[in-house]
Structures are given as structure tokens and as C-alpha cells.
């Protein structure tokens, strides 16, 4: 969903219509005032309208023809509309994207559980989802659509989340763990769960995001504020340039029309970036949403571009979810057959992926190994081993030191050979599982982490961006180092406890770095809050989602990498369009300044290097160019300037060449071209 949606045209018809309507509504002075650059254009348009009325009423003849003045006024108005349209189309696209996600959670019947004592205990009543309040409990059974976001308090269910993530494989959600969150609009496929509502209607993250995209509650980000200050500074400089020109012209006995003054001013001020600035910001959030990431503030996207350090969980991010058995090593005196048999029997009832992979590796059919009256010993954190008891046989498999304990307690030796195997496997990044039968060591199974294909290249790309990657794992340092090397991460935290992440983040932040991490568990929440960018998985607990500043709907741990690029694109788009906008001024000066004075100082014809047809056509061409460049750049503003990890200096050189040099050359050609057309009439 995230990918194919991006192709959907920029100007989808209904979006287009909505944006067009909004561009007029946004002409209100209160709205315009938020953008100082465009506000000055707005004032200019009002002044020009007054001038037109003045001429029409026969008040003056010194301001040029009525037609000419009306055309200038209309172009100024169009400039404003284009700028408004840019913002409106970005808003509309963002809202449409968020809306399509929200559609999944339209009114659905909910099985509301009445609180004990109301009438009966645990009475279930069907109510529309909109009546559910935060803290209410509801029930979901196989086939039900989950009515609203919540947290499972009891039960386990398989859930189809494809409506949100686009991933068709069902996922398991259960009470108590780190995967206890369910999302409104997803479908329960099996089992039955009791869920507590975690968000009030209209307050879900998606609702907050839609509000962010909409004008009213959108706040300017710190960088946007700083850029607005710079652009206002430029605008002020050009106000000074244009206002002082009046007495200069008086001195030179050169009457300059109001239209010419305002045209010069509007052309010089950075309208291009001024008109596109808010669209760029909205588009940044929108791009995040297209990547199925809900951002809680525009600032978070901006910060993502600055990240220095990424904390990544090993499992699921760097390695494919689970370890796989890759080798059986029997100890001396045990036959391979005997060892593999025992390993398979111990894994029969083991539902963990590791257990399944052992059977897979053995190539045996589990049905052939069924035993009677067996007791399965499940894995527990205390024993750190699992196994099976049948008859007089006790088979255990588990961590080396756990099995060593069992063996030694029975007074048997732990073979030297097994110990060295364990060490060797660990050094190669594998996880050794020791198998014992009746407190005698049979052999060692090697489990290996499978590093995701292509992940090394992604880390290389991050390194070129200047982002350091840190792998967080519960493995021992030896294994961790091996995998870290193999995957190409810069650092790792081994045998990580939740507070280790927190300490690492603090340490990095103290040296001035910005840190991002992804997490899902409640014990991740403090670290998510501490990180500069904390991305919570949508499947994670409510606490984790509250603590972070982004929520990833795909639960994809590699998403951080995309988020960094989205942040960088956002900042780059601002920078390059500012450069382009300001570089345009060179040509505009050469178009308008000679036109202003040529009447009284004909010698200045030498400055008319574009050979524009007449003063009127020169001014018109410049204003028209100034207006149409805005819609021409809307697609770029929405798509964002593409980021290439080629190092900061090379990137600057590239962008300076395209947008700086391009910004100088393009308007010369553009204005000349428009002049060729306009000169037919003026």
C-alpha cells in the first residue's frame, strides 16, 4: 500500500477541486498573515486593485493603461492563488491519505461489555463504535472488525491487519506482552479477546495527524520559523530597495508607475519559496504517512534529518526474525543417529521457531517420532531449557550453562569437547544449544542468525549520510560482535537490558548527538521518550506508542532508515527552493530595472541584456514568470528533492549547481520566452 499509492497522480480530480476551492478561502487576511512573504504580495494586490479603480474612475492618466494595470493585478492575484493552491493541495493529499486510513474505522458495531454492577455482570451489548469511550471494555470474536484502537486485556487472537499495513499474513496479538495493541479497522480471524479502549474518539494518532496536516492546529517547526525569519529579512531588504527608489526616480525625473514598483517588489521578494514553504512541510508529514508512519509533530520529521545515531534491535531489523538450526555436532561416543533422534524428540512439542527449525534441519517426519505418555517441559526463563520426559527418558535442550548445571548436579562430567564446541559456535555468531539425555551430554546444535539480505548496503548508505548504527541484542558480546561485523553496524549493545538502551541514548545525547530508536514494549517507553526520534510499533503497547513521537503502522524495524531520508528530503527541499528563489532575482533585476528608467535615461538600453521588447512587456514577463514558477515547482515541493548519500560536500555542490546555477539561468530563458509572446500586445 505504501508504495503503489505514491504513484496516484498529484492532481487527482477531487483533490484538485478541493484545493482550488481552498486557495480562494485562504485569501482571508488572517490566513495570509501567517506567511509574511505572501502577505506583502496580498497587500500589493489590494493596492493594485485600488489603482485600477482609480484609473477606471478617470482619476489619473499617469499610471499607464487600464488594461495593463488590470493584467498586473490579476497576475498578482494568481500568484497568491498559486501559493495558496500549493498549500491546499498538500493539505488535501495529506488528508486524503490519512482519510483512507481512517475510513477503515468507520462506524462498526462494537460488543460493549457493561461494567459489573450495571445490570448484570459482564453483559454484552452491541453499540456503535462512536459511543465507546476511553477505558471501556469490548469483546471481539473471530470474524469481528475491531471497532476502535485498544489494548487486549484478556485472550489471544490472530488478526488480519492488512487494512492498515498492507501485509496479508495474519499476526498474533495477545494480552500482557509487548504485542497487546489492536488497531481499529483490523479483523479478528480466530479466537476471542477482551479489549480496553485506549483512545477517545477523535483522539487517535491518526486523528492527531490529520489535525496536524490541516491548517488550524499546524504549528511552524523551529527550522520553518528560522527560515521564515530569513525570508522576512529578504522581504524587508526589498521593501527598502523599492520604497527608496521613489525619491531616486524623483531626482532623476523618471516617473515610475505604481504597477512597476509593485511588480519589481513582488518579483524580488522570495515568493517562490514563500509560496511553497508550508506545502513542503505538509508534504514531509505526508511522505511519512505514505511510508505508513504516523508522525505526532512536524518537528519530529525535521529532527529525523539530523539524526546521528540509530538504535536498532537485532532481531527483525538486522537478522531475519528467528535463529535457525544449521548443524548437529554430536560428542564422542554418541552416534549421529542417536543425537538427532533425541534432538527431534526434544523439539516435537516446541512451538518456537528455533524448535521447528531443528526438525526442519533433521529432515525427519515428526509423525515417525511420536512417543506415548510424554510430558513436555516448556521453556522457562528460570531453567533456560526445555525438553520431554517419556518413560525413563529425560531429554533436555537448552543454553550451555543450563545443561551444564543439570549434568553436573547429577554428578556427570560436562565433556571438554562439548565446551569447546559451544565456544566455537558462539565465536562464529551462532547460538549453541546443548542436548542431554538422562543427564548425559549428547551433542550441540548450532543455531545461526540469518542476516537480512541487503541490510549491509543500507547501513553503508546510512554511514555515508553520517548516521551511526547501533545494534541492540540480548546475545552475549561474542555473538553480538560477530553479527555486528557481519551486518556492518558501527556499534552494538550486547546482553542489553532495557536500561542499557536508555543509558546509551543519554550518553550519545550528552556528546551532542541526536538519537533515534524503535521499540514496542512498555519497558521501551522511557527510552522512546528519551530518544530524539522514538518510533513505536503500532503493534506495541499503548505506553510505547504514547512515549514515542512516531508510530509505524507496518511494525517494520527498518523503517527508521526511511524516516531519516524523509527528514533529510524535507530540509533539502526547503534549502534548494530557497536557493532557487533567491537566485531568480538576478534575472528579474535585469528585466525590470532597465525597464523602469529607460524612458528618461535611454542610455540604459545597454543594460537590457535580454533585449526585452518594451518596458511594459519586460515587467509583465517578469511577473508572469514569477507567478507560474510556483505551480511548476509544486510537484517538486510535494515529492521532495531526492536525497543521495554522496557526502555533504558533494551534495551541496550538486544542489548548488542544479538549483543555484539553474536558478540564475532558468528565469533569463523563461522571461525572454514570455516576452516573445507578450510583446505581441505590449
Amino acid at each position, binding site marked *: 500500500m505504501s508504495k503503489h499509492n505514491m504513484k496516484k497522480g498529484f492532481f487527482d480530480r477531487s483533490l484538485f477541486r478541493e484545493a482550488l476551492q481552498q486557495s480562494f478561502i485562504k485569501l482571508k487576511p488572517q490566513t495570509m498573515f501567517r506567511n509574511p512573504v505572501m502577505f506583502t504580495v496580498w497587500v500589493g494586490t489590494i493596492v493594485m486593485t485600488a489603482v485600477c479603480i482609480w484609473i477606471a474612475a478617470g482619476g489619473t492618466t499617469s499610471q499607464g493603461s487600464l488594461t495593463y494595470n488590470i493584467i498586473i493585478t490579476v497576475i498578482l492575484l494568481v500568484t497568491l492563488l498559486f501559493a495558496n493552491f500549493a498549500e491546499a493541495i498538500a493539505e488535501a493529499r495529506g488528508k486524503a491519505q490519512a482519510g483512507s486510513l481512517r475510513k477503515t474505522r468507520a462506524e462498526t458495531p462494537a460488543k460493549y461489555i457493561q461494567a459489573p454492577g450495571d445490570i448484570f455482570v459482564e453483559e454484552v451489548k452491541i453499540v456503535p463504535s462512536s459511543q465507546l469511550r476511553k477505558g471501556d471494555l469490548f469483546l471481539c470474536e473471530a470474524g469481528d472488525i475491531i471497532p476502535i484502537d485498544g489494548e487486549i486485556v484478556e485472550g489471544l487472537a490472530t488478526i488480519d491487519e492488512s487494512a492498515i499495513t498492507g501485509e496479508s499474513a495474519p499476526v498474533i496479538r495477545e494480552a500482557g506482552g509487548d504485542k497487546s495493541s489492536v488497531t481499529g479497522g483490523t479483523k479478528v480471524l480466530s479466537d476471542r479477546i477482551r479489549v480496553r479502549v485506549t483512545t477517545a474518539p477523535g483522539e487517535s494518532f491518526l486523528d492527531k495527524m490529520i489535525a496536524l496536516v490541516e491548517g488550524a492546529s499546524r504549528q511552524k517547526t*523551529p*527550522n520553518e*520559523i*528560522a*527560515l521564515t*525569519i*530569513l525570508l522576512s*529579512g529578504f522581504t*524587508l*531588504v526589498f521593501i*527598502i*530597495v523599492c520604497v*527608496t*527608489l*521613489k*525619491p*531616486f*526616480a*524623483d*531626482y*532623476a525625473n*523618471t516617473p515610475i508607475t505604481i504597477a512597476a514598483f509593485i511588480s*519589481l517588489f513582488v518579483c524580488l521578494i522570495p515568493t517562490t519559496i514563500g509560496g511553497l514553504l508550508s506545502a513542503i512541510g505538509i508534504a514531509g508529514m505526508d511522505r511519512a504517512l505514505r511510508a505508513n508512519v504516523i508522525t505526532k509533530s512536524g518537528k519530529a520529521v*525535521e*529532527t529525523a*534529518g*539530523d539524526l*546521528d545515531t540509530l538504535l536498532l534491535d537485532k532481531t527483525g531489523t538486522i537478522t531475519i526474525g528467528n535463529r535457525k538450526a544449521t548443524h548437529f555436532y554430536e560428542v564422542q561416543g554418541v552416534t549421529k543417529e542417536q543425537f538427532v533422534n533425541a534432538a527431534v524428540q526434544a523439539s516435537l512439542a516446541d512451538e518456537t521457531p528455533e524448535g521447528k527449525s531443528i526438525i526442519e534441519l533433521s529432515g525427519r517426519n515428526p509423525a515417525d517420532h511420536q512417543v506415548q505418555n510424554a510430558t513436555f517441559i516448556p521453556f522457562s526463563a528460570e531453567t533456560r531449557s526445555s525438553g520431554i520426559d517419556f518413560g525413563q527418558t529425560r531429554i533436555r535442550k537448552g543454553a550451555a550453562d543450563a545443561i551444564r548445571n543439570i549434568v553436573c548436579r547429577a554428578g556427570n562430567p560436562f565433556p571438554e569437547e562439548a565446551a569447546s564446541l559451544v565456544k566455537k559456535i558462539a565465536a562464529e555468531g551462532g547460538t549453541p544449544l546443548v542436548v542431554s539425555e538422562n543427564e548425559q551430554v549428547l551433542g550441540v546444535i548450532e543455531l545461526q542468525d540469518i542476516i537480512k539480505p541487503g541490510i549491509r548496503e543500507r547501513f553503508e548508505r546510512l*554511514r555515508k*549520510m*553520517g*548516521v551511526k548504527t547501533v545494534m541492540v541484542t540480548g546475545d552475549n558480546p561474542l555473538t553480538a560482535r560477530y553479527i555486528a561485523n557481519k551486518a556492518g553496524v558501527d556499534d552494538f549493545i550486547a546482553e542489553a537490558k532495557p536500561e542499557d538502551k536508555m543509558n546509551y541514548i543519554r550518553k550519545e545525547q550528552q*556528546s*551532542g*548527538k541526536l538519537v533515534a530508536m524503535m521499540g514496542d514494549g512498555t519497558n521501551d517507553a522511557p527510552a522512546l521518550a528519551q530518544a530524539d526520534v522514538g518510533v513505536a510499533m503500532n503493534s506495541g503497547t499503548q505506553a510505547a506508542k504514547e512515549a514515542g513521537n512516531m508510530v509505524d503502522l507496518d511494525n517494520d524495524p527498518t523503517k527508521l532508515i526511511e524516516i531519516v531520508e524523509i*527528514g533529510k528530503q524535507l*530540509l*533539502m527541499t526547503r*534549502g534548494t527552493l530557497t*536557493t532557487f528563489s*533567491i537566485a531568480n532575482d*538576478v534575472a528579474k*533585476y535585469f528585466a525590470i*530595472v*532597465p525597464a523602469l*528608467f529607460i524612458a528618461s*535615461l535611454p*542610455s*540604459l*538600453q545597454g*543594460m537590457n541584456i535580454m533585449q526585452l521588447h518594451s518596458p511594459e512587456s519586460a515587467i509583465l514577463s517578469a511577473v508572469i514568470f514569477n507567478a507560474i514558477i510556483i505551480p511548476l515547482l509544486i510537484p517538486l515541493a510535494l515529492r521532495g528533492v531526492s*536525497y543521495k548519500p554522496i*557526502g*555533504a*560536500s558533494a*551534495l*551541496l555542490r550538486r*544542489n*548548488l549547481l542544479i538549483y*543555484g546555477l539553474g536558478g540564475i539561468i532558468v528565469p533569463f530563458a523563461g522571461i525572454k520566452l514570455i516576452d516573445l509572446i507578450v510583446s505581441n500586445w505590449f
Partner: protein
Amino acid sequence: MNMEISGIIIMFIGAVLLALPLGRYIGKIYSGDRTWADRLFNPLDKAIFKCSGIDPSKEMSWKQHLAALLTINLLWFFFSMFILMNMSWLPLNPDANPSMSADLAFNTTVSFVSNTNLQHYSGETGVSYLGQLVLMLFQFISAGIGMAACAVVFLAMREGTSGKPGNFYNLFVKSCTRVLLPLSIAVAVILLVNGTPMTFKGKDQFVSLQGDTVNVSRGPAAAMVAIKQLGTNGGGFFGVNSAHPLENPNYITNIVENMSIILIPMAMIFALGYILKRKRFAWMVFGVMTVGFLLLLIPSIYQESAGNPAIARMGISQPMGSMEGKEVRFGSVASAFWAITTTATSNGSVNAMHDSLTPLTGMFAMLGMMINAVYGGVGVGFLNFYIFIIIAVFISGLMVGRTPEFLGKKVEAREMKIAAIIALLHPLLILAGTALSSYLYAHNPDVYASWLNNPGSHGFSEMLYEYTSSSANNGSGFEGLGDNTPFWNISCGIVMALSRYLPIIGPIAIAGMLSAKKYVPESAGTLKTDTATFGIMVFAVIVIIAALSFFPALSLGPIAEYFGMK
């Protein structure tokens, strides 16, 4: 002509070669490192600090630095007003020159305290020797203040400086005693040997070949000429400044004086490299400044040596180039070189009449002052450049996909606000001043007829030049402007004061705020500010903000005149 060209190449390269070791020496002084001159100057500085009761090791915050700077300036302001308005009865006045009127004294005081040295009086008749000595004192003080302010920014930019960049009094005193004083003595001795007077006796007399008795003004000139050149002051001892045969007797003194103009401004950049331990960054700054400087210089030399097209049309050949208003002992090329060096660096001393420069050279001289950062004044040149760096850092930081940072410190809204205000101040003061005078003149040409000696574009250039020179704290005059009137004295005085202090306060505030911020370590994604690419970016910012803002005004003045003459 080739001789003349080689003359200026020698001056330029000589200045760079001298600036390199001098910059290292200045860098050592500000960093507090030991230098060979310590043995000589330590006792002198100690005595000064002991008398004044200042503890030079006490570090100051940027706000305390500014308080110290403004206090020093305010005290000297009143002192100077008193002397200039009472010169007639005070000692050291052998020629019985009169006291100044209040508005002229205001203009002169602001002008010298602010390192501008705009002179609406003539040294021979307008001030006594005591007045000259006081003005000379300011030439040390204002230059020392500029250097100390710049040093504050250097130290604040240093890694690990957290909010307290040195002691202002210490930086100020050392700039005067260890840099300006010894260099001035050396230059003064060379001038003395070549014939510049240094005496407290009144006018001398001689009988010319025609039999007329001629009175020749003299005085303690050599000392003042040295510091006016070195401290980018420019206020000459005599009215016509370094065009005067006693102020600048021959080609040798011309070389020495002209190199003195650009020596310290260049050396400050190398000092920056030493203090920050970022030589490449210093070379980037120096490179951008040099490219800007050469772009002003080369067309000017071409214009001056090509001569005046109006004279050429009369069939008169001009083998020496355009010689109107120039001294034969220097020639057109060396005069053009001086004109550009003196305007680009905010010095303002002249060895030729700027009113008589060909129109485009006049424009490049003005552009040098409008940019005011291609080398720029001692210390303050870099401060102006710093603002352009901050703006360039902001835009190019975004272009590499990060929120902008400069030398490991985040540039945010507060810094941008200050940078934007300072960047627009210079165009505001120049254009608003010129607009006011154009308005007055255009609407009451009879009342203000005495202002302009030339009508049309050239008259406009004269007014534009005056405010540009005031706002750039340059002090040179286009001349031809009747400027000793209350209007010009007061308006230029206000422009000089605003354009002196705000552009010092701004960069110190920004550098101070940045130094108090958390240090962000560099990574592969960080914008590198010591590369040619970034240099191009800074250059573009300078051209588009500083130079193009004046394009409409310049087209009405020198550009219109140029096309009119063709």
C-alpha cells in the same frame, strides 16, 4: 603600463606575504600563546592594567564584552566633543585654528570613534595639533576596538569555549600595544625618512621662483599617517589626504601606505585560522574575499588605464590612462589600486580624487563599501563577513539535508533574526539616507543648490557615495558634495554610529549565543564550511544580498553615467 601593473602586483603579493606571519602573531596574542615580543610588552601591559585596576584574566560573557566596548566608546565620545569644541584656546595651536561648531564636532567625533574618519573639515585649517593628536588617539582606539570585537568572535567560535570568550579590555589593550603601536612606529619611520613632517611647529614659509611667499602647513603628520593607514581609519592629516605631497611624498611611500591599508585586514583572517586551528577555513574566507576584491579591482584598473572615452572622442590620446584628479607621481593604475583597496577595506584614505574616477571605477569603489567585507575594516571586515557566513550556512545546511549548524553549533531562529537585521541594516542606512537627500534636493532644488556641484547621475553618485562611505565606516568622500552643513553632518553622524555599533553587536551576540550551545560532533552528513563549494555559496549570498540590493540605485548613478559617456 606594465611597470605600473607590476607595481600593484608587488604591493598585493607583498601584503599577503607580510599578512601571513602577522596573522600568526595576532592569533598567538589572542589565544594567549607566548610570542617573541612578550618580554618587551608584558611590562607595558602590566602597567596599564595596574593603573586601570583591570584584571585581564577575568573572562567575560558576550553581554559583558558589549558593555565594555560601549563604555569605552561613550567615554571617548564626550572627551573628543570637549576638545574639538574648545581647540581655539587649548594648547598646541600654533596656526590659531578655530574650534569646531557643535554639529561638525559631533560628525567628526562619531566619525573618528567609529573608525570612519569621514572628514567634513580640512586638517590644515579645521583643527589644532591637539585636535589632530586626539583624533590620532581615536585612530588607535577605534581600530583596537574593532580588532578586539573580532577577537571576541574568534574566541567564541573556538571549540570548547562555553560562553566566555576572553576579557575585552585585555584583547583591546593588546591589540593596541602589540599590533597597532609597533607597526605604526615602523611605518612612521619610513614616512619620516621619505620626507613626511613630524613637528609641533606652525606653518613654514618659502619664497617660490615667482617670488610669492607660500605658507606650508605641517605638524605631527608622520605618526598620524601611519596609523590612519594601518587601522583602516583613513582620516588624513591634511585635507587632500594621501594625495598631499607631504602626506605621501613618493612612489615608495605610496607602496608602504597602500600595503598598510590591506595588511591587518588580511592578517586578521590568518589569525582566525590560527585561533580556530582551522587553516582551511581561513583560506576559504580569504579566497572568497580575494575573489571579490579582484572582481572589483581588475575592471577598475582596466577602466582607469583605458582613459576617458569623452576625451578620446576629442582625438586626444591618453597614454597614462585617465589622469583627471590623479597624482602624476602615482599614475592611474596605482591610483585605481588604492581606490579599490581603500574602499574595500573601509579605510577611506585617498591618493586621488574619487569624484574624478571613471564612472565604473566609482561604482566598484562604492560596491566595495556596500559589501564592506572583502577584507573589510580591521576586525569589523570579518564581523560583516560572519553575517554572510551565517546566512550561507543556514541555506546550504538545509541543502545537505540537516538543520543548519556552523562549527558544531546549531543556527536557529534567534541567530537568524539577528543576522537578518544586520544584513538589512547596511542597505537601509545607505538607501534611506540617499533617498532622503534625493527627495529634499528633487523637491527644493533651489534651497539645496549648494549641495551638488554636478547635476544628473554624477550628482546622484555623490550623495550615494557619501552615505555609502558613512555606512561602511569608510570615510572617503566622492567630494564635489557641499557636505559641511548641519543636514549632512548630523545625518551622516547618525548613519556612522548605527552602522558601526550594530554590526559589531550582532556578530558578537550570535557568536556568544552559539558558543553557549551544545556542541554537535561532525559526521559525514555535516556541511563542511572549509570547502570551495561553501565559498561559492558565501560569495553568492554576498552578491545577491549585498551587491544586488544596490543595483537600482547604482543604475541611476554610475551605470547611467557610464552608458551616457559611451
